């Protein structure tokens, strides 16, 4: 017992004189070092993120209740809920919301179905597989604004010429000239741009499916449709989740394409929500109202994408 105490005392002395003080110094030095590292490593990221993203976001709540015209903020007057009640009666806003929802549903379905078809095709042992993957992905590396201009030419000049040569009614339509053809014009370009990207994600997911699972299902006598529904779809559900998320949020936020292809026209019949906000602020100089719309836009995007991710996540299984 005594010996044990003695050793304990000795070892205590061995660690240093006045241990609590030393510990305090060490702790302090460690904490300061930790702070230094924290500031150097996280500081720049936080600085830019807070300045560029968080501050404007918070300011939005204030501006959305003012009549800010974008120029002199000093004269911006607090108007309470005036902007909100104005939005309630703003047909342009609700029409563009309706347009955006229709556009999103149609183009998301077509883009993903096409992407899946392409992915299955390119999973087969085709000789030109690699070249084809490159070709289908290519539209995606070009920005939306330039894609819109490319297609503006094709719809107005290219299609017209082909229509004269072939007499196929499809090419003779007044593309971009009527609300419904303008709608489908945007869908075509969006699908053309997006399908290749989603195809890449689906291919990566399909390549990860264990071959024996597919074989087993085939031996059990599963027909192609059954194989697709009961084997492939459940196993690529994570890819479906992410592809739907990307296409839905991109389609819902469509702006560049809208600006360069139809400018929202004819009239405002193909005006997307993002374009409506842009026009409200920069053309009508109603920044306050624009900010209020932008806030609603944020709420809508969040609700739609979060709901979708929650629903498809629940359907995910592991192989």
């Amino acid at each position, binding site marked *: 017992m005594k010996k044990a105490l003695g050793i304990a005392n000795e070892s205590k002395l061995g660690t240093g004189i006045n241990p609590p003080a030393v510990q305090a110094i060490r702790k302090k030095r460690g904490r300061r070092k930790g702070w230094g*590292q924290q500031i150097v490593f996280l500081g720049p990221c936080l600085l830019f*993120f807070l300045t560029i993203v968080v501050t*404007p976001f918070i300011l939005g709540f204030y501006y959305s209740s003012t009549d800010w015209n974008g120029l002199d903020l000093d004269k911006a007057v607090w108007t309470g809920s005036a902007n909100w009640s104005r939005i309630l009666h703003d047909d342009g806003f609700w029409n563009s919301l309706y347009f955006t929802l229709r556009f999103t549903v149609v183009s998301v379905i077509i883009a993903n179905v096409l992407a899946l078809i392409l992915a299955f095709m390119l999973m087969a042992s085709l000789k030109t597989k690699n070249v084809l993957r*490159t070709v289908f992905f290519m539209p995606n590396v070009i920005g939306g604004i330039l894609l819109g201009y490319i297609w503006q030419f094709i719809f107005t000049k290219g299609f017209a010429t082909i229509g004269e040569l072939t007499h196929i009614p499809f090419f003779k339509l007044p593309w971009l000239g009527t609300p419904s053809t303008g709608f489908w014009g945007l869908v075509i370009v969006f699908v053309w741009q997006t399908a290749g990207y989603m195809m890449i994600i689906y291919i990566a997911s399909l390549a990860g499916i264990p071959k024996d699972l597919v074989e087993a299902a085939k031996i059990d006598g599963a027909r192609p449709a059954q194989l697709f529904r009961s084997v492939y779809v459940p196993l690529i559900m994570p890819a479906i989740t992410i592809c739907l998320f990307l296409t839905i949020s991109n389609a819902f936020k469509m*702006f560049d394409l809208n600006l360069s292809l139809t400018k929202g026209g004819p009239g405002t019949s193909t005006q997307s929500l993002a374009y409506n906000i*842009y026009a409200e602020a920069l053309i009508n100089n109603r920044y306050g109202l624009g900010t209020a719309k*932008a806030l609603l836009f*944020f709420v809508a995007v969040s609700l739609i994408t979060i709901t979708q991710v929650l629903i498809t996540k629940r359907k995910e299984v592991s192989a």
Partner: protein
Amino acid sequence: MHVSQYKSKTFALEIVAILLALLFLAPFYLVLSNSVKTLKEILLDAASFPQVFHFSNYSDVWKMIDFPQAFWNSFQITVLSVLLIVVFSSMAAYQIVRKPTKFNSFVFLLLISAMIIPFQSLMLQLVRVTSMLELRGELYGIVACYLGFGMPLSVFLFHGFIKTVPYELEEAARVDGTGPFGVFFRIVFPLLMPIIVTVVILNTLWIWNDYLLPVLIIGGNKDLTTLPVAVTKFFGQYTKKWDLALAGLVMAIVPVLLFFLSLQKYIVEGVTAGSVKG
């Protein structure tokens, strides 16, 4: 018998796939072939192969938009932004993974949630904030904006990757007396190469092609006009000079297309890595 049946089926599939690919390429062909025609020829027949190659469209556009200047503007904005995004977001992700305090976890959550915010919800207030900070019309101003918007996804990608980097390597270096900065840049950073490539590619494509942010932030400063913004000047409401416009489009598309074709293997991998959630 079974083998030949399989082969003919694949062959048929191959034909269908190639036809679809040609359909995908047709827009590029139309733009390219018409960009070397005269305006009269375009209006007469936009589908035919050009009779004479009319390259003066290109030299005219080259001068009109001051192509070397616009290209250089786009180039330096993209390179500077991407470089800083890579350095800052990898450092931040490293700190968040290795020091998972409550504060750091909160920061991470904040960054992730910000990914849902659409740009249009921020742009008007951003114009205000950037002019208050005197960032508008300046090179460092637009770079600062790209840093802010590029950070969330990049930190997210690095975060997922750093979790898989073994800690033992760092400990060994630390025992040898390397400071935290040295540990990160000499040990961890080189190990992040695969995800760095992904972050570089995703950000490069986005920043190079971006339109709205340069319009809002660079706006009045003509000396900083980026390539996509410069080309839009051929697309006024009433002037339809398709000969010049198409040549301008080709000139704006070629740099990014070359970037893609020379790095396509990494781009495809990068897109895949960037889309699979951790």
